[in-house]
C-alpha cells in the first residue's frame, strides 16, 4: 500500500510499504477514505518530537471502512464505516474506566521510553513517535486499529467524510479545550492560535456559553475564519498589537480574559520580542524543547482566579515559566491530550443536529500522493492553508 513516511527532518515521502495485518486479536484493519494532516504532525515534521525513526508512517486523523477484524472483535464488522480516535485506548484499565482515554495504561508498548522523559507514560498514538508506542499511522491506504471495539465510532453512510473526519482529533480536542475552562455562561475567553484546533476551541467556547471569544493570531485569513466561521466576537492580530496582554486588558475592562486557551503549543511564533530569539536559540540548540511564548502570555493575561487551558502540544521542558504570576493570582492550569472517546458520540450528535459543521476549516484536499506538498503548504501557511485533507 502507499503510505506517508517520515524520512528525516522536514522530509516526508509517499512510499510503498507492506499492508497492515492483524497483530492483536482485538485489531481491525481499516481502508482509509479520508485522512488529515494535524498541526501536531508539523512538530514531528520539524523534528521537535524525539524518538522518531526514518520509515515511520505518520497520521492520526483518519476514517474509512472496516475490511478485516481480529477474532475477538465483536462490535465492528467488515463494511462498517468508522472514524478512529487518535489515542489508542484499551477500555479496560482504571484510566479508561474513568474516561481518561489518552492516558490509557496498556496501549503503549514503549511506555519505558515515555517514562524516561515524562515520569509516567500516556496512551499510545497512531504515527506519533516511538515514545508513544511506535504505531503505524493513518496517512496511508490502510491502517491497523487496535482495540477496535473501544475506539472507532460507526458513521451512517449519508454523511460526507468532511463533516465527521475531525471527530478523530481536532474537533474533540478544541471542544475539550473549551470544556476545561469550566464555562458557566457570560465569560470572556481568549484563544491563542487560530489554526484548526483554535477554530474549534472558539466555536466550542461559544457553544458552551462564553459571551465573548477573542481569537489571537497573526494571519488575517485565519482571523477572518475565526470570526466568520467559528464565531469569534473579537480578533487580535499580534503583529498589529504586539502587546497582547495590554490589548486584552483594554478589551476586557482591565480584568483580563476569564479563561485563556493555548491552542499553539511548542513552536509558538512571536514577531519581535527578544524572548522569542532566546527561546528559538535554546530550542534549536536543544537546551529547551519548547518555545512557549503563547503559554507565558496566556498566564500573564488571564484574570485573577481564572483558568488557563493548554491544548497545544508540548513535548518536554520549558524555561521561564511565570510561576509567580500563576501562583500569586490564584490561576488554574488544565491540560491534556484529548480524551477523544469521551466526546465522539455527543459531538457526532451535534453534527447530525446541525449545531456544528466542522467542514468549514478545510482549505485543501489532495491525493495521498501529494502529502509532501500538503506538509509544506500547511507548515508555511501558503495559499491561505488551514487544513489539508488527503484522499488515498
Amino acid at each position, binding site marked *: *500500500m502507499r*503510505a506517508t*513516511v517520515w524520512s528525516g527532518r522536514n522530509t516526508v515521502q509517499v512510499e510503498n*510499504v*507492506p*499492508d*497492515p*495485518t*492483524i*497483530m*492483536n*486479536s*482485538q*485489531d481491525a*484493519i481499516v*481502508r482509509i477514505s479520508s485522512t488529515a494532516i494535524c498541526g501536531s504532525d508539523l512538530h514531528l515534521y520539524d523534528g521537535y518530537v524525539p524518538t522518531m*525513526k*526514518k*520509515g*515511520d*508512517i505518520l497520521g492520526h486523523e483518519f476514517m474509512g471502512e472496516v*475490511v*478485516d477484524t*481480529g*477474532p*475477538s472483535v465483536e462490535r465492528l464488522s*467488515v463494511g462498517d464505516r468508522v472514524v478512529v480516535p487518535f489515542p489508542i485506548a*484499551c477500555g*479496560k*484499565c*482504571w484510566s479508561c*474506566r474513568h474516561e481518561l482515554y489518552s492516558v490509557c*495504561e*496498556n*496501549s*503503549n*508498548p*514503549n*511506555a*519505558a*521510553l515515555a517514562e524516561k522523559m515524562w515520569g509516567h507514560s500516556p496512551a*499510545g498514538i497512531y*504515527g506519533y513517535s*516511538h515514545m508513544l*508506542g*511506535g*504505531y*503505524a*499511522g493513518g496517512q496511508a*491506504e*490502510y491502517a*491497523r486499529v*487496535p*482495540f477496535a471495539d473501544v475506539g472507532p465510532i460507526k458513521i451512517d453512510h449519508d454523511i460526507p467524510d468532511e463533516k465527521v473526519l475531525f471527530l478523530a482529533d481536532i474537533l474533540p480536542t478544541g471542544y475539550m479545550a473549551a470544556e476545561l475552562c469550566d464555562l458557566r455562561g457570560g465569560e470572556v475567553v481568549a484563544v491563542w492560535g487560530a489554526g484548526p484546533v483554535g477554530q474549534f476551541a472558539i466555536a466550542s467556547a461559544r457553544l458552551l456559553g462564553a459571551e465573548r471569544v477573542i481569537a489571537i493570531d497573526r494571519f488575517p485569513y485565519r482571523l477572518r475564519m475565526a470570526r466568520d466561521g467559528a464565531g469569534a466576537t473579537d480578533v487580535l492580530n499580534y503583529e498589529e498589537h504586539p502587546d497582547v496582554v495590554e490589548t486584552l486588558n483594554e478589551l476586557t475592562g482591565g480584568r483580563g480574559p476569564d479563561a485563556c486557551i493555548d491552542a499553539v503549543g511548542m513552536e509558538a511564533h512571536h514577531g519581535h520580542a527578544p524572548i522569542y530569539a532566546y527561546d528559538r536559540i535554546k530550542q534549536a540548540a536543544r537546551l529547551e524543547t519548547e518555545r512557549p511564548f503563547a503559554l507565558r502570555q496566556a498566564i500573564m493575561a488571564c484574570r485573577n482566579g481564572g483558568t488557563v487551558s493548554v491544548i497545544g502540544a508540548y513535548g518536554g521542558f520549558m524555561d521561564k515559566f511565570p510561576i509567580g504570576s500563576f501562583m500569586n493570582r490564584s490561576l488554574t492550569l488544565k491540560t491534556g491530550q484529548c480524551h477523544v472517546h469521551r466526546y465522539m458520540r455527543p459531538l457526532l450528535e451535534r453534527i447530525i443536529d446541525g449545531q456544528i459543521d466542522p467542514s468549514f476549516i478545510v482549505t485543501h484536499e489532495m491525493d495521498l500522493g501529494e502529502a509532501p506538498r500538503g506538509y509544506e503548504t500547511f507548515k508555511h501557511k501558503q495559499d491561505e492553508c488551514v487544513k489539508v485533507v488527503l484522499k488515498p
Partner: protein
Amino acid sequence: MFELPRERARRLADLLGWASIGLGVPQVSTPRSFDRAIGVVPDREARAWTFLVGLRELGAAASILVIEQPHPVRSVWGRVAGDAMDLTLLARSWRSRRESPGRLGAAIGAVVVIGAIDTYTAVQLQRSARGDGEEGGKMKVKAAITVDRPREEVYSYWRQLENLPSFMDHLQSVSALGDRRSRWKVNAPAGRSVEWEAETTEERPGELIAWRSVPGSDVGTRGAVRFQDAPGGRGTEVHVELEYDAPGGSVGAIVAKLFGEEPHQQVRDDLRRFKQVIETGEVVRSEASPEGASARRLLKQRPAEPLRVPVGAGAGHNGNERS
C-alpha cells in the same frame, strides 16, 4: 582458577590501599629523603607539598581499607584525582627543581602506571557495584505495578505457573514438578537456553508467593511476589522482588546478559505485560515493538510500518484480500 572481575577489582583496591600506606608513611615522616629519592630538590615548598601528599595517601588508605569497605568506589576514584594532582606537582618540579632527570622521570612514569591501575580498578568496582543490592555479589531488583482487578484473581493468574511465559519476556516454559518444585527454562542468546529447578519457599493464598532455586542449580535465584489491595478500590498492587547470585562461568554470563544492563527495566516490562494480559487479555503489540513491551526491543526499534511477515493474532489469520 577463573577469578570474577568483581573479586579482582576488590583485591586490587586492597593492594592500592596498602600502597597508599607504603607511600604515605615516608612522605609524612621523612619528606626530605622522599624528595631526594624521586629526584626533586627538597626545598621548603617541595617538602611541604610532599608532607601534604603523604597525609592524603594515609587518608586514602584509611578510606579504602576501612571506611568504604567492601566496595570502595569513591575512595579509588579519589586516588585517581590524587594521581592527577601528583602529575601536576611532578611536572612543575621538572621545570623548577629537578635534581635527577632519571629518577624524576622514573617517578613520573610510576605515577602514570599507578594512575592507569587506579582508573581500571575504579571502573571495575563501579561496574560491579551497579545492579547490586545492599550486599555485594547479588543482583537485586524491585518493581511494582497496579492491576485493576480483585486480588484473588490477580493472585490466581500468577499462581498458575504455566501462565507465566505469557507475560515474562525471556521465559520459555515453567512446569510444575509437584511437591512445591518447578522447572524453569529461559531463552538465551544464540538459540540456547538455561534451565533450573526452583522450590516454593512460602505461599500465602491471595498474598504472597516466594521461591528460590534449589541448591546446586546452575542459577542461584530467589524471588517473591506480593499482592496487596490498592487504596480506593483501584485493584491490586503487585510487588516483585528478585535476586540473582553474582553469576560466574558461562551459564552466569548468559544470565547476566539476559538480565542485561537494565534489570529493573526488564522486570518492569514483564509486569507491564502481566497487567496487559490480565486487563485486556493479551500482550499489546505495535509495529515498532511487535513483541510488545521489551527492554531489548526499545534499543532496536523497527520503523512504525507494517511487518512483511504477520505476527501475533494475525499469523495464520485469513484476512480479506487487499491490494
